[in-house]
C-alpha cells in the first residue's frame, strides 16, 4: 500500500508489500513533520505497554479473588469497579466482565472479528490470540484448541467461549490450584499465567512452579 495507482486492481494483493520498517519510518516522519504526533509521545505509549501494563496486573486481581471472598463476590458482580479499585482502568478495560472457572465449567476468551483483549489487566495480546487459526477455531472446536495448549479437561466439564464482539472485555478467573492452602497472595500471583486468564490453560500447579525454578 502507500501508492495511489494500483488499489483498484483485482490482483493488487499479489504485489509484494513494501517493508513495514520503511513504511512505519516514513509514516512517523511525515506525521511528525505535519505536527500531528510527537516522537516522545510514541515512546511513552510503547513504554507503557512494554513495561508497565501487562498480565501481572491480572494476576494480582486473580490472586486477590482467591484469598478475599468479599473481593471475589464484587469482582463477579461488578468487575469494572472491583478491578478499578486496584488501579487498573481505562483504555480497553472500560467495561469488564470476569468469568469464573469451576469444577463443572471452563471459560475461554476470543475475539473472532479482530483482537479485542482486556489491556488494563493483561496488556497487549500475544500473537497467537490475534492469529487467524485461533480466532477461527476457538468458537468452533474449543476442545481441540485447548489441546494444542496442552489443556485437557475432564469429560464432565462444560466449556463457555466468550467472543468479544462489543466493548465488554472478558477476564477468566482460573481455579485456585490444590496444594496452595495458606500461600501468600504474592506467591499465588506466580501461579496465575496470562494464558490461564484467557482460558487456554489452567493456573500453574505448585509442582510446575518448582520444576521451573
Amino acid at each position, binding site marked *: 500500500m*502507500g*501508492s*495511489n495507482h494500483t488499489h483498484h486492481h483485482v490482483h*493488487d*494483493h*499479489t504485489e509484494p*508489500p513494501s517493508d*513495514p*520498517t520503511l*513504511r*512505519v519510518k*516514513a*509514516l*512517523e516522519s*511525515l*506525521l511528525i513533520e*505535519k*505536527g*500531528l*504526533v*510527537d516522537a516522545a*509521545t*510514541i515512546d511513552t*505509549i*510503547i513504554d507503557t*505497554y*512494554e513495561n508497565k501494563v501487562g498480565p501481572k496486573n491480572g494476576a494480582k486481581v486473580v490472586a486477590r479473588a482467591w484469598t478475599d471472598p468479599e473481593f471475589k463476590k464484587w469482582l463477579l458482580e461488578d468487575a469494572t469497579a472491583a478491578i478499578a479499585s486496584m488501579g487498573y482502568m*481505562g*483504555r480497553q478495560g472500560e467495561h469488564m466482565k470476569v468469568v469464573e472457572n469451576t469444577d463443572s465449567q471452563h471459560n475461554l476468551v476470543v475475539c*473472532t*472479528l*479482530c483482537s479485542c483483549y482486556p489491556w488494563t489487566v493483561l*496488556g*497487549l495480546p*500475544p*500473537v*497467537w490470540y490475534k*492469529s*487467524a*487459526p485461533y*480466532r*477461527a*477455531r476457538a*468458537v*468452533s*472446536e474449543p*476442545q481441540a*484448541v485447548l489441546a494444542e495448549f496442552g489443556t485437557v479437561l475432564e469429560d464432565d*466439564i462444560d*466449556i*463457555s*467461549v*466468550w*467472543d*468479544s*464482539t*462489543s466493548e*465488554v472485555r472478558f477476564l477468566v478467573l482460573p481455579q485456585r490450584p490444590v496444594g496452595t492452602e495458606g500461600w501468600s497472595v504474592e506467591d499465588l500471583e506466580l501461579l496465575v*499465567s496470562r494464558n490461564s486468564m484467557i482460558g*487456554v490453560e489452567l493456573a500453574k500447579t505448585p509442582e510446575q512452579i518448582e520444576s521451573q525454578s
Partner: protein
Amino acid sequence: MNGAHDLGGFDGLGSINPETESEEPVFHAEWEKRAMGLMLATGFLGEWNIDMSRFARERQHPADYLTNSYYETWLVGLEKLLLENNLADAEELATGKMKTPAVDRLVKKRVSPDQVAGILLKGGSADMPTDLPQEFKPGDSVRVKLFTRRAHTRAPQYVRGHVGVIHEYYGSHVFPDESSKGNRIGTHLYNVAFKGSELWETENKTTIHLDLWQDYLEPTC
C-alpha cells in the same frame, strides 16, 4: 461486511502454534512498537473512533487480511484512516515527505508525552443512553437476524439466523454499525448464549457467548 476478518468457524487455517508464554516478547520487531504507538497517538487526535479503525482494517483484500501480521493490518488501517480523513495524501504516505501542512485545529490537538497516562487511564466508555424500549430480558429466546450489511457490523456470520438465549442485559452501548459511519447512537446490548450444537453439530458441551445489539436480534415467535 462479510470479509476475511469475520473468522469464527473458518476452516483450513491449520494449527495455532503459540509461542511459549514466558518466552514471547510484547513486540517482535522495532517497527511493531512504532506502529502501535503511531496508531494510538494519531487516534488521540479524535478524527476517528474505534469502529472506524476496525472498519479500515477490515476493508483489505481477503488475501491480504489473511497473510498480513496483525501490526501490518494496523498499519494498513492507519494509512487508510489518514487518507480518508485528509490527514495525508497517497504521495505523502509513499514518500514520507510533507506536501501540505496539517491544519492548526489538528496540530493543537497533538498529545504530549505527559498527557499519555491520563488519556489511557480515562479510556473511552461505550455507555450511550437510548430512548428505545428494551425488547428482551435474560432468559428470552432470540434469533439473530439474517441480514447482510456491506459495511461494518459486529454480528459475525456464524451466528446470523441462529437461535440463542439472552444471558445478560448490559445496558445501552454505542452501536458500532452506526459509529463506524461517525454516528454516535446508543442501542441496547445483550450477552447472548448459543449452544454449540446450534452452531456446529459436533460441539455439544460448549456454549458460545456473544455480545449482540438489539438491532441484530428478533424474537423467535
